[in-house]
């Protein structure tokens, strides 16, 4: 099942340019002295690396280290500022996405490139439609394309119809469709940018199986990830980037994990040391939901409480109802049943403006589409929700105070930016997330803080900063509810974890009972642990 053991490919940066000397496996893709500047920022500097045929190269690095940029250049989506890219040893000038695809390079980016209004089979064959009689301007061969799609879905173990519209798929299923679409094109070089960040555990296993198959078939794979265990499972070579420079280039089986981690962060980081305070179980109940029900049965009667100073985690596989629950509480979407009680006061007619006034804060999971105004600057984005606190009675913004307070709350989260007037779209993912979180530190602290995947796609350093601020806020009496698909994160951060399945919390684990295995069992509905249900 695992691809056969290969002779080590040569990875010394000085020699990789010379294709003829590259060990036993031919080099599929390499770059030499690659540099990329965005405005005044060097995103990549002097990057030289190579990917061998039939091997998987793991690109590691904190957010903003330049991984996505590098993949973007390989795929022809971005033009390098200096240096060159070679595909199968041939130098590529004027690399465009079309040219890259012609040479067999395919990419799966973090932003999916599916057409929402089309079906799964239409998307999988988009631009590569099969036609009756092979005449490419003729009639589409729908039957064949459906059949091929069904085979692909089946081989991945994904139980959806080829006729489902992308609109109706969950994020993780859409991600799988995107991967299958690219897989179906039989690329010689496959670039995957955080392929597993949206996937469930089962889907991740299927993906790894697929990757092993592709490696055996001679495909060369370059992928980025934040998850250390993935490197060991599918990676053959590993390259670590830090601030756009290569800090480590080696083979996975010869490189200890500690070395990779320290190459990423540039400092020793064995375990995250988070001092979590003891919650006061006699503290007042700040948040309570009573039999909350959403439309489309995504949430079917959720009753949860959270006390002042408590950090409550929500676990569950994708689609278990965690996001629907949070959005329902905050008041995004259609009609709801049940009640939300904040500080003993029931409030109906929920919508974001009223929720914020009632002391509820929400950090959405999708920071780019639901969180930030990307074209606007850092200050504007930081102060957006609490702008009233900086306004004169006539509605004029007091900019001095606004800047000062924004800067203070951004600094508390150790956000990196060039200046406050910089467009927030230019920041890395981790720093964008910090901007989003800093909104709720800028003025009066909220009563209830809802965090939906607060560290998705973020490097270790930024994660620690965010954990610290969450713990600090809880210590000051904020009731915090964190939804996350990463269990270790919840187990580190939370006083209790409610495990969702089918739109209902099946069981609440207190910190003393935390066990990754038990929680996963409840989440996937397996075994006796799933039976005990608490309200």
């Amino acid at each position, binding site marked *: 099942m695992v691809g056969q053991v290969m002779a080590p490919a040569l990875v010394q940066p000085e020699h990789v340019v010379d294709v003829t000397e590259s060990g036993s496996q031919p080099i599929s893709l390499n770059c030499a002295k690659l540099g990329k500047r965005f405005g005044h920022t060097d995103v990549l500097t002097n990057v030289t690396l190579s990917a061998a045929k039939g091997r998987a190269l793991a690109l590691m690095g904190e957010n903003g280290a330049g991984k996505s940029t590098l993949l973007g250049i390989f795929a022809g989506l971005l033009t390098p500022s200096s240096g060159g890219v070679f595909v199968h040893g041939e130098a590529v000038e004027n690399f465009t996405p079309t040219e890259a695809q012609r040479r067999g390079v395919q990419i799966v980016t973090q932003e999916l490139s599916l057409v929402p209004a089309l079906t799964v089979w239409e998307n999988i064959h988009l631009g590569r439609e099969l036609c009756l009689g092979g005449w490419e301007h003729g009639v589409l061969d729908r039957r064949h394309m459906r059949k091929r799609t069904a085979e692909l879905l089946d081989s991945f173990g994904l139980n959806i119809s080829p006729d489902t519209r992308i609109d109706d798929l969950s994020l993780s299923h859409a991600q799988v469709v995107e991967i299958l679409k690219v897989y179906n094109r039989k690329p010689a070089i496959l670039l995957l940018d955080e392929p597993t960040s949206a996937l469930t555990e089962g889907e991740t296993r299927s993906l790894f199986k697929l990757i092993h198959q592709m490696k055996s078939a001679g495909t060369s794979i370059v992928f980025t990830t934040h998850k250390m265990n993935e490197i060991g499972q599918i990676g053959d070579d590993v390259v670590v980037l830090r601030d756009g420079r290569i800090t480590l280039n080696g083979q996975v089986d010869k490189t200890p994990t500690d070395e990779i981690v320290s190459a990423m962060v540039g400092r020793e980081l064995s375990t995250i040391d988070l001092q979590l305070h003891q919650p006061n179980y006699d503290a007042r109940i700040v948040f309570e939901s009573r039999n909350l029900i959403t439309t489309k049965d995504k949430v079917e009667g959720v009753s949860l409480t959270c006390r002042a100073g408590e950090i409550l985690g929500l676990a569950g596989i994708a689609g278990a109802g965690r996001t629907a629950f949070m959005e329902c509480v905050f008041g*995004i979407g259609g009609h709801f049943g049940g009640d939300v009680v904040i500080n003993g006061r029931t409030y109906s007619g929920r919508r*974001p403006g009223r929720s914020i006034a009632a002391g509820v804060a929400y950090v959405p999971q999708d920071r780019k*589409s639901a969180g930030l*105004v990307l074209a606007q600057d850092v200050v504007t984005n930081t102060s957006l929700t609490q702008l009233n606190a900086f306004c004169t009675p006539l509605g004029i913004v007091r900019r001095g105070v606004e800047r000062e307070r924004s800067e203070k709350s951004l600094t508390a989260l*150790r956000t*990196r930016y060039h200046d406050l007037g910089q467009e927030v779209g230019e920041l890395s993912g981790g720093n964008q997330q910090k901007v989003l979180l800093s*909104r709720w530190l800028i003025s009066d602290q909220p009563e209830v803080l809802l965090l939906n995947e607060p560290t998705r796609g973020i490097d270790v350093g930024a994660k620690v900063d965010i954990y610290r601020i969450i713990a600090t806020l809880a210590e000051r009496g904020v009731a915090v509810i964190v939804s996350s698909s990463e269990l270790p994160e919840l187990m580190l951060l939370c006083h209790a974890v409610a495990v969702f399945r089918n739109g209902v919390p099946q069981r609440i684990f207190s910190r003393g009972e935390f066990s990754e295995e038990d929680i996963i069992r409840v989440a996937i509905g397996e075994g006796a642990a799933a039976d005990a249900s608490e309200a």
Partner: protein
Amino acid sequence: MTNLDIQPNAGSATLAPRRLGIGRLLPDRRRLAGMILWIAFAFYVIPLSIAEPNFISLSNILSILLLTSVYALIAFGESLVILTAGIDLSVGSIVGLSGVVAALLIDGHSSAGWVLLSVFAGIAAGAAVGLFNGVLVAYVNLPSFVTTLGTLSMALGVAYVISSGRQISIDNNTFLNISGGRIFEIPTPIVIIFCAFAVLWGYLTYSRWGRFVYAVGGNLRAAYVAGLPVRKILLSVYVISGALAGLAGVILSSEVTVGVASNGSGYELVAIAAPVIGGISLAGGRGSLFGTLFGVVLLGTIDNGMTILNVSPFYQHIIRGAIIVVAVSIDILVNKRRLV
């Protein structure tokens, strides 16, 4: 106020260095597009001024501004709508409607009170159409293009109905003085557009409302999740756009001494073109009212220049359209905005 002192890890930098040095002085891409337009503008104005010294005389400059004052007012309102990623096609019809309303009211009266009333009625007629647009866009979730395409026709129809398709001539001197009068030697309409500009620009730039307009246009969903009163903001820009078009209609009817339904037909072209030339993105959330002012002046100057040069009005249409396309192309090419 919350205290945010949280102990960071010792010894790590919190902030990247700020941009310093001579790089700051050079124009970045975003400003370059504007500069190219200014330079092109200069290449048009300077030779023309040498060939035709009258072109840069104070009286001609004032007449350019006077001619563009009606356009400027509707373009300001249109800019607000475009900043929220919408479009208002009804402004031209509103100009006609408000002119007719004002002319009907002033007909047969001579007192200053009736002048005031008719001016306000003209503005109110525009605001009412804007309110209708805004309610449909913000509360019924109708696309602005469809909504205002409908009101373009409806407002024009209402104007024809209440005027019975007639031209209503205006002979009230106080009313005619709105366009003909001067305040401190400056024609009144010019004073009005600069006042309107100052108030709108200031409020857009320095107020909470202005921030919200940009946020709603930049990312509607994020604005909603951030708790902004999205619907009210959307409603407000359509009402303001309608009211400004109403005011423009009053000024225009005073200028041409007649209220007629077709007075503003086709004005939406300039109203949309000016902000777009001035760098306001049709996708919303980007641009400044200064750009709109520049766009209006640019279009007005070119119109005026072509008239001085005796270019046939038929060709003027072609040239005006070409300028719009070229100006926006420069912006897109310089900013390297891609289709995908």
